[in-house]
């Protein structure tokens, strides 16, 4: 009873969402497709006898619920379009699927970048014969940061987790270079020490190594796009955390980020490059350009990025500008209080990204593809 009731309730919700005018026609089209899936599932479950396996029906219903939740989140008028734009640009390089980014503004101190289960799309195609082309992903960020792009850089770290889980990058590394082979990770026993542990102890440490490798990968991913803004935010957020089974210590994370930013060779970075290559994915590299902001921001004027690399570079350079002006404000900035300086640099960053968005929109209008 509950399964069919849930699906009917979800279908009704999707129908209500379809009446909301969305910013994106692609989202509208996607909602229509999802309604088709829910209807077909209800019809299969309602047949006598049901024409779909019960466990499979439950799995599909649960995923429809999750995807509906993603869509509901983006009806808010508080979406930080500029940050979403930057994250979408970064994500585009890592998938050939059409991503539909939706946004949730949450009250808690949490960020995530969560995609629909790829299993769901496979099952819908194989079992119901419906091929869903778009892949919805949901970005969540804290309400108080919705106009603070420099405090939203953890979204790039979360995008790293998404890329990892969608492609099993770390799992690939665990198969080709398991914990008994290395590279050794800071805070943890060496590969040689792990080898000498009892099987049950080895299993436990493997879970820890996997978790730490996942975090390091996401950290490097964040730095690859947001540079010192990604590292700087983390340094403020967890300056001296000790390691846990799920996360490396702050000092180990910062040291790896330092190596990556400085272009220093590091066996942990090499581990990911091998796994990424095997999975046919781009290499981890610094994807942002150095942008000179002193002239613009010094006069409290936004910058106009000319490329995606410039957009990513805004995070790195704006963070440095903010840190400098926080500690030793110059000229006009010295007349502003601390909070105003934080607000103004974030505003300038947001407006600078918007300059790129507007320029691009004009370009597309003038020269439609």
């Amino acid at each position: 009873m509950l399964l069919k009731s849930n699906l009917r309730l979800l279908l009704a919700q999707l129908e209500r969402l379809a009446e909301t005018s969305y910013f994106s026609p692609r989202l509208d089209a996607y909602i229509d497709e999802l309604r088709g899936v829910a209807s077909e599932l209800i019809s299969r479950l309602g047949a006598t006898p049901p024409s779909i396996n019960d466990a499979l029906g439950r799995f599909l219903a649960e995923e429809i619920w999750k995807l509906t939740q993603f869509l509901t989140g983006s009806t808010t008028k508080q979406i930080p379009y500029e940050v979403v734009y930057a994250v979408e640009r970064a994500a585009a390089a890592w998938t050939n699927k059409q991503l539909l980014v939706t946004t949730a503004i949450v009250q808690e101190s949490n960020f995530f970048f969560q995609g629909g289960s790829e299993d769901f799309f496979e099952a819908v195609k194989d079992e119901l014969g419906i091929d869903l082309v778009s892949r919805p992903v949901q970005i969540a960020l804290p309400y108080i940061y919705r106009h603070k792009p420099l405090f939203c850089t953890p979204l790039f770290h979360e995008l790293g987790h998404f890329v990892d889980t969608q492609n099993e990058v770390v799992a690939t590394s665990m198969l080709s270079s398991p914990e008994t082979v290395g590279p050794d990770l800071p805070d943890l026993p060496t590969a040689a020490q792990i080898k000498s542990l009892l099987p049950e102890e080895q299993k436990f440490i493997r879970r820890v190594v996997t978790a730490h490798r996942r975090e390091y990968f996401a950290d490097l991913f964040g730095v690859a796009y947001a540079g010192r803004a990604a590292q700087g935010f983390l340094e403020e957020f967890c300056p001296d955390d000790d390691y846990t089974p799920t996360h490396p210590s702050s000092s180990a994370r910062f040291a790896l980020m330092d190596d990556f930013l400085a272009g220093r060779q590091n066996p942990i970075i090499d581990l990911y490059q091998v796994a990424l290559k095997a999975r046919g994915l781009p290499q981890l590299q610094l994807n942002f350009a150095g942008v000179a902001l002193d002239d613009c921001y010094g006069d409290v004027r936004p910058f106009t990025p000319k490329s995606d690399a410039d957009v990513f570079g805004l995070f790195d350079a704006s963070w440095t500008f903010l840190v400098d002006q926080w500690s030793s404000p110059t000229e006009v900035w010295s007349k502003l209080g601390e909070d105003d300086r934080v607000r103004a640099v974030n505003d300038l960053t947001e407006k600078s990204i918007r300059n790129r968005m507007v320029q691009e929109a004009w370009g597309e209008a003038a020269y439609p593809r």
Partner: protein
Amino acid sequence: MLAAKPNRTNSLRLFEVVLRAFEQKAEPQVSDPLRTHALRVVHEALLIAGNPALINATTGREAIELALRLRDLPTLSGRLAAVPQAAPMPPELAQELLTSLRPLAA
């Protein structure tokens, strides 16, 4: 929380659903494409567990995840390898594989 929820980042959720269908012989069964898909996952996982250098851009996510789990299960891996690729998976074997995939308490 009212009931345990499946891990959302688990790549093997659909695979486990299909295994459950094999195990319970429940009617209606899952479709042929899904059944074939699950058996292909098993064979691909066995292949890359034996030689991770075979992982490439087209290797399925589920196969990589399953290969990782099979590392600790040499006996079960041997029995799975003995099932011909086109043949249905015996219910007892499906049950054993399902049990072995259950998350361990941390």
